[in-house]
């Protein structure tokens, strides 16, 4: 799967910041908030009014990716989101409770459906193509990528718009914090979209393979990493960069240790959640980082990205979802 464009809105100044991007690990507080652009240059006012924050972030990165790739009519639009449209869900629930189920209005309800990001993109582009939304926790983005890979196999001329978005609202942050998710690691949020195709021309990076695991043991993870590398003729020492989902929360340390050992000491390790915070579709931000690296752009903790030919993205979510991606330079 070849990526021809990548766009991200994140707690970093990542949006349309081609040359100026120097990611800074964010250490203040336990909630990272996206640095959002001025949307008026991308989305007309008549449409913006129907878009809550997460929709704007998703639509803006999708439009940006399509513009970068020079694509106006994608063959498919595939979105991953674990939490969906939380702001509107919260608004509708609040009104429903306060008004005791009377005199409610439709806008928040309509905008709360999980496939609204994908639907709004289709509406803006008048795109009748295949459109799907995956909502499976820390595998939402991975399922979207898997669907994309299959689409490209099924139709080699496709150009697929694929991405993910998850937001943090004041309410969701409080609730997730009560679950103890952000004791040691800040919460995050973000949106990232990519254009993918089957042929390598004009590609900025290649996703050579993805593997997902559910509640594996460390041996299974080690085997999966080894197999993924071997399938592409690689072994320990051949990967120059590991984008790791490790955080200060030690719960999944044994898995991250095993993966680092398997990849080998030569690989620089970047903990991407220090840049974007903890959220279920954060691997989409990691993929955006990988695409940047493959284009020779700077990464914090790495003085020179030009030597990176292969990168692995590995995330071990506490709910038991693991994902491994192998990315290569084109």
């Amino acid at each position, binding site marked *: 799967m070849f990526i021809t464009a990548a766009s991200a809105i994140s707690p970093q100044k990542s949006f349309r910041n081609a040359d100026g991007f120097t990611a800074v690990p964010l250490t203040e507080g336990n909630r990272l908030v996206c640095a959002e652009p001025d949307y008026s240059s991308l989305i007309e006012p008549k449409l913006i009014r129907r878009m809550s924050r997460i929709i704007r972030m998703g639509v803006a990165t999708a439009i940006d990716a399509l513009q970068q790739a020079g694509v106006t009519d994608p063959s498919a639009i595939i979105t991953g989101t674990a939490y969906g449209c939380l702001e509107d869900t919260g608004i509708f629930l*609040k009104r429903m409770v306060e008004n005791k189920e009377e005199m409610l209005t439709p806008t928040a309800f309509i905008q709360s459906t999980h496939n609204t990001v*994908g639907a709004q993109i289709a509406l803006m582009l008048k795109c*009748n193509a295949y459109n799907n939304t995956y909502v499976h926790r820390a595998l939402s983005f991975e399922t979207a990528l898997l669907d994309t890979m299959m689409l490209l196999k099924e139709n080699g001329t496709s150009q697929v718009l694929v991405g993910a978005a998850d937001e943090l609202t004041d309410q969701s942050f409080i609730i997730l914090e009560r679950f103890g998710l952000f004791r040691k690691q800040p919460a995050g949020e973000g949106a990232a979209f990519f254009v993918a195709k089957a042929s390598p021309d004009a590609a900025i990076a290649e996703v050579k393979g993805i593997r997902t695991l559910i509640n594996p043991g460390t041996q299974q993870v080690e085997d999966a990493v080894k197999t993924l590398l071997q399938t592409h003729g690689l072994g320990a020492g051949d990967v120059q960069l590991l984008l790791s989902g490790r955080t200060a929360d030690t719960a999944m340390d044994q898995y991250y240790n095993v993966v680092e050992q398997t990849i080998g000491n030569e690989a620089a390790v970047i903990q991407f959640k220090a840049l974007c915070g903890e959220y279920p579709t954060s691997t989409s931000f990691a993929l955006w980082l990988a695409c940047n690296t493959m284009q020779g752009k700077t990464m914090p903790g790495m003085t020179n990205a030009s030597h990176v030919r292969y990168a692995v993205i590995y995330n071990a979510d506490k709910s038991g979802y693991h994902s491994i991606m192998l990315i290569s330079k084109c």
Partner: protein
Amino acid sequence: MSAPVYIAGLGAISGIGNDVAENFRALQEGRAGLSAIRYLDTVHKNTFPAGEVKSSNEELAERCGWMGSDSRTAMLGYLAAREALDDAGINGSVAYRTGLISATSVGGMDLTEHFYPHFLANNSGGKLRQVVEHECGAVTEKMAAALQVTDFVSTVSTACSSSANAIMLGARMIRNGLLDVVIAGGTDALSCFTLNGFNTLMILDQQLCQPFDQQRRGLNLGEGAGFIVLVSEAVAKDLSKPAYAKLTGYANANDAYHQTASSPDGTGSFLAMKGALEMSGLKASDIDYINLHGTGTQNNDASESTAIRRIFGNSLPRMSSTKSFTGHTLAACGGLEAVYSIKAMEQQCLLPGLRISKPVIEEEGVMVNEFTNGIPVKNILSNSFGFGGNCSSLIFSAI
């Protein structure tokens, strides 16, 4: 990507039955499951008829063998998926790569809405236990754990076309050689959030709905779950009983017209049905029966019938909307109606649509008004169209 995909197992729970047999008997006997709301606590309980599953949460938990703190959506989903898997007769001694692809529109919202009033009063209020299954994916996760599926699990959420899309993904993963067996479908429990949400759109009928009738007033909501077990050809050869049918065509298209309303010319529906037909290699005239999306809203039924005429011209197949029995089960409808369609093919019968006096499609004999036995049914088209213009069609064919 031409490997055939077979359906080996069926599972269902809805307002008209607790399992496939009960559901089918109700369809045969013309017994709808729509009435005043009994189980959901809402101010609208006597205003809008709904197709509730006729069991309390305690009763469902007992059937699941669970503790009683789970979302109704998870319980309905598990029961239907379990029935489908048990029905499939898959050789248990072979380690087939098995996936669960479920679908839901509001996940565990039925519990979240109990949490919310307390939380709004005080940030530390409300029991966290009630939001553990809030996320769509968390509901599927609970089902997967109970079914012991670990190879691949995911969740689709595209409003009313969700479970049709889940079935499509499952079939494609089998054809791409990634999985051997996929339990695919969807589940949704009735919630105040959904009921009130649909009420704001003013598309709910205060009487029993009349899909595809010229006097229709809107939809009745329902709840339930429908799952089918998709298997590869290799697995199909090794089943303890023959597979039911093949999935021969599927397509998803987007209307791209409006957030909730369908385009007058039914673009999305037209493209979905056309795509499914093209994949199946069938002619329009090969379709023996259409299980309509047929919600009973002014907009859907007009749009869907327009699209059907565009595809079938003057040779309209027999058709009906089983939502006249179950109500609109939202994300579950694609899966539930797939089960009904496949069962109809197994039994070689036509399923009726209830309470039509003046049909939208007026040609004689097109709308099925009564359950009809002894009809050669070889190919069935099932439609599911959702908010966000998401349109999906599935074609099932006799083996």
